[in-house]
């Protein structure tokens, strides 16, 4: 069992399995830090739009930000509820960036005992393309990494 677990997620289906594993792996009374990375590809979602007025683009950006915010909040609230049921101290950190780089950086900011994350989505399953688990990640992490199997 581990006292301070870092749960890394960016809202994918695989991350849900990691949530359950993190909660069951963390010692009662221990700390669960939830790092939620919003992938930076969302910043490029206005693409090469040039026909719209600035107000339309602003409205789109605000709408997208709000919708993503709602999804992140729902996700964090679910993990928070489950963590509290297990008497864990729940903290969250929400960051925008490249999932792999953010995780490497964040893992060095506190004394975590273990990092838990979900496994990549199988090719046959639809979903957004944003890898967190990369070769570089496994080389750079300073602490053990546990990968939860993809939910079947």
């Amino acid at each position, binding site marked *: 069992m581990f006292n301070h677990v870092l749960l890394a997620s960016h809202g994918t289906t695989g991350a849900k399995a990691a949530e359950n594993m993190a909660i069951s792996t963390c010692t009662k009374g221990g700390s669960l830090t939830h790092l939620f990375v919003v992938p930076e590809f969302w910043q490029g979602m206005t693409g*090469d*739009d*040039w026909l719209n007025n600035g107000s339309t683009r602003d409205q789109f950006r605000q709408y997208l930000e709000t919708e993503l915010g709602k999804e992140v909040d729902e996700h964090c609230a679910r993990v928070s509820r489950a963590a509290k049921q297990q008497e864990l101290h729940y903290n969250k950190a929400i960051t925008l960036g490249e999932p792999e780089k953010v995780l490497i950086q964040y893992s060095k900011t506190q004394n975590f005992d273990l990092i838990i994350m979900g496994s990549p989505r199988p090719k046959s399953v639809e979903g957004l393309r944003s890898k967190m688990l990369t070769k570089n990640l496994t080389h750079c992490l300073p602490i053990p990494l546990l990968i939860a199997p993809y939910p079947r």
Partner: protein
Amino acid sequence: MVYTQKTPALFIIGLIMLAIWLLTENGLIAPVLDHLAAGKEYRYTDELTTIPLYFGSIATLFGVWHWLGAHKEGSWDFYSSSIAGGMFILLITMLVRWFIAPEIAVIGTSFGKIGDTGKYIHELLGLNYVVLGIVTGIIIVNVFKIPEWAKNGVRLSRLGLKTGVILLGALYSAAELKNLGGLSILMIGFFVLGSVGIVLWIGARRNIPNSMGGVLSAGMGVCGVSATVAVAPVVQAKPVEIAYTIGTILIWGVACMFLFPIIGNLLGMSYVQFGAWAGTGILNSAQVAGAALAYQPDGIETLMVAEIFNITRVLILPVIVLWLAMWYVKREGHTTNVNVGSVVIAKFPVFVLGFILMFALSTTGIFAPANHYQGKYFGNTVEQGFKQENLLQPEQTLLIQSEANKIQRNDYQAVLERLVVNGKIMSIEDDTAVRGLINARTLSPQANDILTAAHQSVRHTAKKIETFRQWITWLFAFGLVGLGMQITVGSMKQAGGQPAVIGGIVGFVKAALSLIVVMLLVSETV
């Protein structure tokens, strides 16, 4: 927040531009230019000796101030910070237009012409400064990332395209605008409404959510990413649906920008036909302009046709947003009312008013005589630019008189008679007849030369319109390189799910059907 970054980047950009100007002025890069000209005259010498000097000076001055000056929050800081990004795009555009694209042309020419196409590989693939500029932009954003100091300016590249469209308004004749406008309303009306309807129909059959159907139909039907951005909040699309749709549109758009000019070249399409096809068949509006300039890099006739189609699309956009808003409310069983007025006002493309204003000003003769055609006009008086020394000389009139009996048509003989009596061409109709005689080569080569000189002496180019053409070329090149810098592989990679399947079907059908319609129904000129 202070937007201006204290870096020497802009100063260095300015120095590079000034170095280009200095090296050209002193002839130090003459061997390089000779190599790029491949035995002909290097075509951009005029630009090399002016543009880098003007913009290099501005960039150097602002560069020193950005680097060493004190910056405070405010509107001035926000707008002046964009100069760095703007100059960054401009430098890339200069390098690609003056050096990289000509080098690709030299390499392409060295392979010889491809089969019986009569074209070199770079011409066939449309590898000119426009396409290469967009590709360079895409490479920069995805491989190196846009530097922080340039981000604000890169976002401003849209302004370049909009200004280009506004200036373009000065180049159309009333007849062109009427004919192209009518054609584009027919084509866009049919294909836009058709694609929106088909996407909604397929979506219903495949049981996709209404929000996804709404956003996808706008993106695939109207003007790609711009329509998706406008419609997504109205139909309450989920982030994943937006990502799928925009990814699919961007991949299609970039692929079409390369494929359309190749197909157009292989089919030998006219500028009008290609402009109409690109304006209808390419999903994303930015790539319509890109493909048009890729097809005709040294002229703007194709762009003029394609942009009329783009303008028609963007004018239809508020209508489609309204339609989809009402459709969504009905399908979802909501009771909220759609505010027609606010939707139309919010989505109306203001820059189109600028285009209309420029066209209206152009018809008053403020830029060129009202009867000009793309900046060229007829004028046989001194006030209109005719030079008295161009009047026919006695020996020239004698030669024309002696050969007049070779012509059988009486009306053409009358034209020559008027030319002989007045020493110059007297009307546009006479000028057209003289051009016909020149092309027919009925008279001797000497007489034909006299007629050619007489024709040229009454045909003038409006300097303002010529300047507009130069500016339009640069504004579009600048804007497209900047837009290339906003196409991320990360967003393209999100293409997937139902949008990829439906988008693939609709995108292909639209491109193929519009090609058939254009080849069968659109004449080679307007």
